[in-house]
């Protein structure tokens, strides 16, 4: 089972990264300057504005991504078994049922494009 190896490697890399961070934090001179610890604003004093504007496009992209991602995942088991289905003579049935699914997918994509949900500017 590769799971043990995966967990081992993940923990190892996390420790390695923490060690690198520790090493990096040891070196270097330390000169205190309050301006240094402000977030980068190209040298201009930071204007503290707390009202973040919600940009619809980011989360709409993420939502549409989830939906299409699942449709693509549904194609994976079909893709692995399609050759076996064709060899056993059921190919046409599976091909058509998948094409119905892909047609729904294409319709959805087409609708998103038409309704300008996929416009970024």
């Amino acid at each position, binding site marked *: 089972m590769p799971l043990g190896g995966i967990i081992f490697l993940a923990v190892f890399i996390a420790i390695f990264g923490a060690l690198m961070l520790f090493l990096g934090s040891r070196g270097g001179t330390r000169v205190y300057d309050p301006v240094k610890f402000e977030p980068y604003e190209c040298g201009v004093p930071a204007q503290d504005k707390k009202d973040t504007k919600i940009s619809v496009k980011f989360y709409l992209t*993420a939502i*549409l991504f989830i939906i299409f*991602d699942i449709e693509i995942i549904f194609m994976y088991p*079909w893709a692995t*078994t399609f050759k076996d*289905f064709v060899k056993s003579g059921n190919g046409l049935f599976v091909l058509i*049922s998948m094409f119905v*699914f892909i047609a729904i997918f294409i319709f959805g994509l087409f609708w998103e494009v038409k309704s300008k949900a996929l416009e970024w500017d």
Partner: protein
Amino acid sequence: MTPDAILFWILAVVTVVSAITVVLITNPIYSALALAMAMIGISALFVTLNAYFIAGVQLIVYAGAVMVLFVMVLMLFDLRHELQAFTRGKISGAVKIACVGMLAGLVVGAIYMSSSSLIHASAAETMSSVDATKQLGKLLFTQYLFGFEALGVLLLVVAVGCVALARSKGGTHEHH
């Protein structure tokens, strides 16, 4: 103690701790990250049950897609700390916790009572994972074909609905 048992206990502890963190921590961003950790833990638990394909799908769909959406929305909202994270009222809160505790006791009790009648298959019976993935595909395209196509339609409807919701100006009474 077999390696499988050690892995199970590690993963179980990680998953349960992350799940409890989701509920108890007041900053919703940490909640979302803890939930992502719980999803990864559950995915690893699927691997211990030899459901490799489902584990991968869990990683892609839940840990990869759904939780990224949550984290993105939370970061857009910029809710650093909630003033009131939990429901008001000590008595109603206590009643709710008691209900949850009773449900937990009920479920665990039921599992404990019926554990003798639950299936105890030996490891030899389970098929190899290569076959399992192909079998899964075959099952999906023969017996469960209707459900599969219906889900395609459902996803289309959800996509349309989400776009419509995102377009709405956020009010019910304004007329344009």
